[in-house]
């Protein structure tokens, strides 16, 4: 099966799962309303977006220099920095650090970059026990599923489905489908794990070059526990997360939490700048940062595609996407779903692997409208569509270009071009279509599965305009 057929199978499964679609509709409506409540003043929102965009865009332009400064500062602070070109390399490095510290169990905070490298799977295969400590991540770890959303990984499950999972994996705990009680149950289960784990693994939201600070945004306190309770902390993040100054962080943090979950601020905001010092009572003895490239530098050289890397992973584009709400995240079949996934994954994996995702977009623009760093998502998706069917452009970092070009489709567009660039031919065509409107087929393939077939008017507007005496020049 090719990527397009596989995608259609997943779409078909999603669209036939009514429970799943109800879960997404309800969750997305809620999170959209909460975001809107955080931005009552559109002028202020636009000013904040401008500010956030500028910070991110400047950071990307200066990225090589900032990463160097970040490494120097972190090293001086006692945090060890590792560079990984690929997902495989990142996993090898992390496994090496764990092995070197004789760490056999890992408690993890939420990290999409670790999803990108499939770190859990890699470590488990090598005999290391990994437990996800974010509630949503814990739920999907039990269910053996990938995240369906980058901020709310278990959003596809409702509380009854979560209750069922808990009953299955913790039969000794009395059944409940009360959200607060379920959360309490998870909290108790995870508590002991924090205390006993040899190492904690986390992501990073912003890495500050000036001070060598790793910022981590979270709500459950699991991020703080994962990064402070075990004797070893390993952070992993994409190279694009670096920003220059500490003062760059507040606007990004504000627009991140408001855009993501509609919170003015998250319950926890962690700033990690060094391992435990001799006079300190807690904190890890060693802290490592793994900086992952995984195709990001390749994207960076293209002036237009570079915008993709501004992303601060808030998920607002996903929450507002009218296609995502119908399908949920799993249908995309990639780590990042929704608009940002459609823009990023074909760049990361190649158009021949993920280019078909670009078809799952109506160009409605809802994503671009809410993006806190003003990534022109529809424009990027349009560019990827063009690259997927055409190899002619000479400079591009994309792989798999032209792989979705179908001769039949290309021929149709050539005919369309001929018709629409020759006015006489066009008028002849509309004349025939209007005069023969009685012969318009009642079935028009996929269109008439959900709608009746449109019928041409009895006269084209070209004709009506002439009849009504409108001048033509």
């Amino acid at each position, binding site marked *: 099966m090719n990527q397009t057929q596989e995608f259609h199978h997943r779409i078909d499964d999603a669209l036939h799962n009514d429970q799943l679609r109800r879960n997404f509709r309800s969750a997305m409506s809620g999170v959209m309303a909460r975001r809107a409540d955080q931005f009552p003043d559109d002028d202020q929102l636009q000013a904040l977006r401008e500010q956030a965009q500028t910070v991110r865009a400047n950071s990307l332009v200066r990225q090589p220099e900032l990463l160097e400064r970040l490494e120097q500062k972190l090293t001086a602070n006692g945090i060890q920095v590792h560079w990984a070109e690929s997902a495989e390399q990142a996993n090898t490095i992390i496994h090496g650090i764990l092995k070197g510290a004789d760490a056999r169990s890992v408690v993890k905070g939420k990290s999409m970059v670790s999803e990108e490298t499939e770190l859990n799977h890699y470590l488990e295969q090598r005999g290391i026990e990994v437990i996800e400590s974010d509630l949503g991540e814990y739920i999907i770890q039990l269910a053996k599923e990938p995240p369906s959303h980058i901020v709310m990984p278990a959003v596809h499950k409702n509380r009854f489905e979560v209750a069922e999972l808990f009953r299955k994996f913790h039969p000794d705990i009395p059944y409940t489908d009360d959200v607060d009680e379920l959360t309490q149950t998870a909290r108790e289960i995870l508590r002991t794990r924090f205390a006993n784990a040899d190492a904690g693994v986390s992501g990073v939201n912003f890495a500050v070059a000036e001070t060598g600070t790793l910022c981590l945004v979270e709500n459950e306190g699991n991020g703080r526990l994962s990064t402070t309770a075990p004797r070893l902390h390993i952070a992993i993040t994409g190279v694009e997360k670096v920003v220059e100054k500490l003062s760059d962080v507040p606007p990004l943090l504000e627009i991140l939490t408001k855009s993501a979950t509609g919170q003015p601020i998250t319950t926890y905001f962690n700033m990690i700048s060094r391992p435990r010092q001799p006079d300190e009572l807690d904190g890890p003895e060693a802290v490592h940062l793994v900086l992952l490239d995984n195709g990001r530098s390749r994207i960076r050289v293209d002036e237009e595609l570079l915008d993709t890397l501004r992303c601060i992973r808030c998920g607002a584009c996903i929450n507002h996407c009218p296609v995502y709400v119908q399908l949920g995240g799993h249908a995309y079949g990639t780590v990042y779903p929704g608009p940002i996934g459609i823009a990023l994954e074909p760049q990361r994996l190649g158009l021949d692997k993920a280019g078909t995702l670009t078809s799952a977009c109506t160009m409605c623009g809802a994503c671009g409208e809410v993006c806190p760093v003003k990534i022109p998502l529809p424009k990027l998706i349009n560019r990827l569509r063009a690259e997927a069917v055409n190899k002619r452009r000479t400079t591009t970092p994309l792989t798999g270009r032209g792989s979705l070009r179908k001769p039949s489709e290309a021929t149709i567009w050539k005919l369309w071009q001929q018709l*629409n660039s020759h006015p006489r031919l066009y008028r002849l065509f509309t004349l025939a279509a209007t005069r023969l409107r009685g012969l318009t087929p009642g079935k028009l393939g996929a*269109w008439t599965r959900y709608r009746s077939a449109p019928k041409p008017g009895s006269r084209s507007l070209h004709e009506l305009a002439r009849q009504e005496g409108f001048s*033509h020049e």
Partner: protein
Amino acid sequence: MPAPEKVYFFATCLIDLMYPRAGLAGMQLIKRAGVDVIFPQDQTCCGQPAFNSGYREEALAVARAQLACFKCDIPVVVPSGSCAGMIKHHWPELFEGEADEQQALDVAGRTYELTEFLVDVLDVRLSDLGTPTRIAIHTSCSARREMGVADRIQSLLAQLDKVEVLTQDREAECCGFGGTFAVKQADIAGAMVKDKTDALRATGAERVISQDCGCLMNIGGAFEHQGDGPATQHVAEFLLERTS
């Protein structure tokens, strides 16, 4: 900008063939305000279908064929947010670096969506001659976001004192048309138009009015297929009908 003496009217290929009465109504509304309407007979399509499908070379050839139609320095009025958006916002990208880039930028700079033109330039005053009715507005995504003119259709309809405008749930959500999306991702589009028609039907409106015939073809076609739902109509036709 003061009202011009003359304007060009760009029909759009969809209106030309499928909804010519909507286009004619748009032209008549402008003419009634004392502005001459020129309809260049060599116009065809703005190029959007190919552009959105990734076939930029084909889109460029078709867009280029329109340039000769709109040479005079007068406004180009388009009865569609989506086609107006293509000309205004995507032609500059499409023609970038081409020999005729300046001409394309020139046309883009004087292109208006119809309701935008009626409100911003002509400042039309309407008096409602119809019987009381209840309608719902579906604003196309391109009119709303790309062109930023969602409030123009509202202000025009608000002038009609016997027309009650009802608001649908999730008003700003796409109807699922998306041009070739409706064919390439037919089942997703089907699910989306189902949600949209449910929301519109639930308002109890007698008619659904929009500034884009793409959405109307999708929504109206779905109502017809479902065998139940309000009528659908382009805003130009509705305005003309209520005021003459």
